[in-house]
Every structure is written in C-alpha cells, then in structure tokens.
C-alpha cells in the first residue's frame, strides 16, 4: 500500500476516533491523533495479522503501551475487520468492551494496557518467546514519550538488549507533550536517542505523521542482534487545527462544531458507522 493511500486511511481513522470521543464525551484526543499515522502504517502495510483469526499463532504482535490512545487503535482494528465497525458507537458506553484503554476482550488486543510502562516488558516476553519457539513473528510496541519516565521502560530496554531481540520494535510517539506540558519541562528526555543507544538498541528517527517516512523505515533492513527503537516525531492533535500542539487537548473533548471542523480539515465527509 502506498503512502498516499495510507494518509487517506489515517485521516478516516482520525475522523472515527474524534467522533467516538465526541459521542462518548470522553477520550484522549491529542495522543490518538498523533499516533494514527503510525498505527495505520503498521496495520495496513507492515503487520502480518489475520483479522478473522486474531489468535493465529504466527501473527505479528502489537501492543499499545500508551493505552490512552485507544480511540485511534480501536478505529484501526475495526476497519481492518477484527470486530464490526458499528461497535465503535458503543465506545465508553456502559458494559461495552470498547473502553478507555485497550482491553483484551476486544479481538486483536493482546493484553490489557493503560498503566504506563508495562508494554515493552510484555513485548520483550513475546520476542523472547519467538526466539525460543523458533517463530518468525515480530513484536511492535508503541509507547508515548511522557511514558518514558516510567522506570520499568528501562528495565525492559536492558532486557531487550541483553537478549539481542532483533525481532522487537519499540516505537515512541514523540509528540513532545504530556498532560502537564512539554516533556522537556515535566521530565526532560533529551538527548533521547542517545539514551536508547546507550541501552544497546538500534535507534532511528522518522517523521511519525508521514506514512512515507514510516514505510521507508520499516522497509529498510535493520541491523541484526539488537532490538530496534524508532523515535517517531509527531504532532500532538495532528490533523485537528484547534488541537495541534496544544497540551490542553490531551483529553479534551471536541464540540459538535469542532467535529465538523475536524471533518473538513481531514478531508472526510463523516463516518460510516454513526
């Protein structure tokens, strides 16, 4: 799939996500928007998965460690056919399995995430399992940049390098903002790439809101013997003119007018499930 098509799909999923948040009157708008080009590139062009057979043993594994960006993730899973798209209308409604963080009662979701700093450890376990069981699946973990302050991320980083997990990808949605403000003001990360290099990882950077940049990264062979870290530079709230790069849009909910503004900016007419 080419980058232009991926961009179109990503914007449709943005419309899905922002509609879910508006209808539920709750959600994490900023992070869902920043991560959607990464999620779309992975699920439509990179991951080997079978939506009709979500537990297929050979599937590539994906973990949304930054579980609060669940709206975009659920929109992608539904559009790929893991569950009926109409179910997106139940997001955050009483009794729904589609809740504010990934829940593995949802087809396609491997483990429950949402408590930050857990995903990479689980991904290390999945990658060790692939090596020990001689399986060729790869494991991808999407983390937030604010999440990097969790110490357990670095426990997992040490283990990934220790076990030379070149079948493991840590992708960081580097949008530069967290709930209280800029990451560099809350708990500075830079020089961030050097930190990952120092932990023994193969580190690269990409434009995280540009599917072509992401495709190029995933299509290029990476060095063997090391786990891979992709720092994907993104814009929080990407695609929504009223939300881009604004920390208050971490979990602000768009109004009816803003929803229409979002559709216009994204170049979509609306959603086909609501």
């Amino acid at each position, binding site marked *: 799939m080419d980058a232009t098509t991926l961009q179109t799909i990503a914007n449709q999923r943005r419309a899905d996500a922002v509609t879910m948040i508006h209808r539920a009157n709750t959600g994490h708008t900023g992070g869902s928007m920043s991560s959607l080009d990464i999620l779309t590139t992975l699920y439509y062009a990179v991951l080997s998965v079978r939506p009709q057979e979500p537990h297929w043993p050979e599937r590539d594994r994906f973990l949304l460690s930054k579980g609060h960006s669940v709206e975009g993730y659920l929109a992608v899973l539904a559009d790929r056919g893991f569950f009926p798209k109409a179910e997106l209308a139940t997001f955050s409604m009483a009794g729904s399995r589609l809740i504010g963080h990934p829940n593995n009662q949802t087809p396609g979701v491997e483990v429950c995430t949402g408590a930050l700093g857990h995903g990479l450890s689980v991904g*290390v376990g999945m990658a060790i399992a692939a090596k020990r*069981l001689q399986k060729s699946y790869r494991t991808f973990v999407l983390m937030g940049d604010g999440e990097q302050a969790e110490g357990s991320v670095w426990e997992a980083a040490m283990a990934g390098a220790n076990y030379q997990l070149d079948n493991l990808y840590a992708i960081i949605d580097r949008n530069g903002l967290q709930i209280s403000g800029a990451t560099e003001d809350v708990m500075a990360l830079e020089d961030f790439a050097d930190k990952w290099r120092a932990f023994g990882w193969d580190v690269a950077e990409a434009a995280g809101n540009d599917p072509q940049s992401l495709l190029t990264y995933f299509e290029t062979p990476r060095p063997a013997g090391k786990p891979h870290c992709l720092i994907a530079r993104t814009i929080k709230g990407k695609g929504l003119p009223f939300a881009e790069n604004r920390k208050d849009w971490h979990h602000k909910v768009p109004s009816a007018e803003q929803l229409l503004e979002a559709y216009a900016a994204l170049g979509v007419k609306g959603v086909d499930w609501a």
Partner: protein
Amino acid sequence: MKTEAARMAFTRTLLALAREDQTIFATATDSRGSVTLNEFADALPAQFVECGIAEQNAIGIAAGLANAGIRPFVCGPACFFSMRSAEQVKVDIAYSHMNVKVIGVSGGVSYGALGMSHHATQDIALFRATPGLEIFIPADGPQTVALTKYLAKSSEPAYVRMGRGAVPNVYEEPAPFAPGKANKLREGSDAAIIACGEMVYHALKAAQALAEEGIAVSVYDMHTLRPLDEAAILEAAETGFVVTVEEHNIHGGLGGAVAEVLSQEKPTRMRILGLPDAKHFTGNSAEVFAHYGLTAEGIAQAVRKGR
C-alpha cells in the same frame, strides 16, 4: 519427622515436569539461588529466562511468554513480587487473564532478621482484593509437590506463597490436594482452628495438646485462599468458636477471609492470630513466631481463652 523446604519441593517438581513439557518455563530475578532454580537453569536453559533484579519487568515478560503459549512460572522473593510488581500482576496477568504462575518464595517472615523490607505479610490481603488470581499457601513439601502438579496443568493465573526454611511434613506423598477445597486434618466439636502454610503444623500440635486436656478441636488446612472453601468455613463454625492462624498481617488475610464469610453467613465467635499491625519484632522466623504467639502453645492458649 521428615522436613523439607517448600521451595525445594517446588523446584524439583517443576524441573521434572518441565523435562517432559517444553512449554513450562521458569523465570528468575537474580533469584535462581534463593528459589533453588540453579539445577533447572543448568538443565533446561532454553526454558529458563533470567530477568535480573527487575520484578516489574519479570512479570511483564512472563505475560508476553504466556501470550505465545508458554506456561511461565515467575519465581522470586514474595516480598518483591507482591509489592514492587503488584501493578504488573494486577494488569498484565490478572486483568489480562494470562496463564502465569507467580511463585513468591521466602514469604511471610522467612527472612526473619533481614527485617520488614524483606517480609511478605501483606501479600494475601493485596491479592485477595485483586480479582482474577488463584491464591495458594502450601503447608509443606508434599503439598507443594501436589500443588505444583496442579499449577502445571491449570490455565488460571495464580499467586503462590511459600516459605524459605525446611518445615516438618504435615503430609506424606502423595499429599491430598484439590484447589479450593480445604483439608480437614482433625475432627473435634469444641472449637475449630483454620490455618494455612507453615502454621498448619503448629495448629495440629496445638490440637494434640488440647486433646490431652479433653478439648476436642477440628483443624483445617486452608491452602487455597482463592477460590475460598466457604463450606469448610461454615462447617468449622458449627463448633461455635473459630481460631484462624496465619503468617500474615491480622488484617485482610486468612482471618479476614474467614470473618467475611462468617459475619455474613453464620456469625460465630472468632480469634484471628497473625502478625500485628505494627513494626515487627526482629529475629529469625521461629523467634518472631514465639514473640507473637504463633506457636502450638500460643494457638492452644487462644482456644482455651476463647471457647
């Protein structure tokens, strides 16, 4: 009398099972010595994962292994797995329903004079309030063997707490063990003692002493804290007085579990014996037990006073 440390009964059983089943894995947190996993690590390196001193990571890794169909036993000190990695146990294992067995060794006050940093006396309270985990405290080596065989077959997430030192065998091999079903070890209608773990042996000794005084006491080994054997608790209450004994804080453990059942279903006089809600007296575990009356005589005294 035969004695054996539960952790050794566990590791010899696990190794035998893992030799026959390549999906059984053990993980350690620089704890292969303290758990007694050295032989496992040497014999089956492809089924062993060293996680370093990083309990949070170890639990997450185990969840990832389980996702691929592996059946991991995560092994390390109970004090660290029940607190340092409590959130990973809650989210990655219990909430996610991953088939991981968390094996906390040297639980309770096994580490004695190392102090409260190394005591695990809140673990049962914590995990009893964490839905989705079976909870076991074996009484001795033979029961640990039977429990380990069950765990290797079960697909339920579980937390097991076992002690460090050798303890007298309560059972002969093969020990009777059914998860969620207490073992009634002694019959008596004057009072009932419900105990778990190492305290089962002391409870039996107390019952023997009391029998010589003409007081007939039932003794139950409540090796499973979840699912809880409510029928056994209600049966114990028929005696009119129930004493619980555990190597755990008096809040939220076995005594709390029994009280929750009885206060709602069959109000019965009780006495909860355990470790106080205070900084612990320091000493080896026998000395700590003696200090707090977690001995045959202490238990017998509680029965005499209360009935």
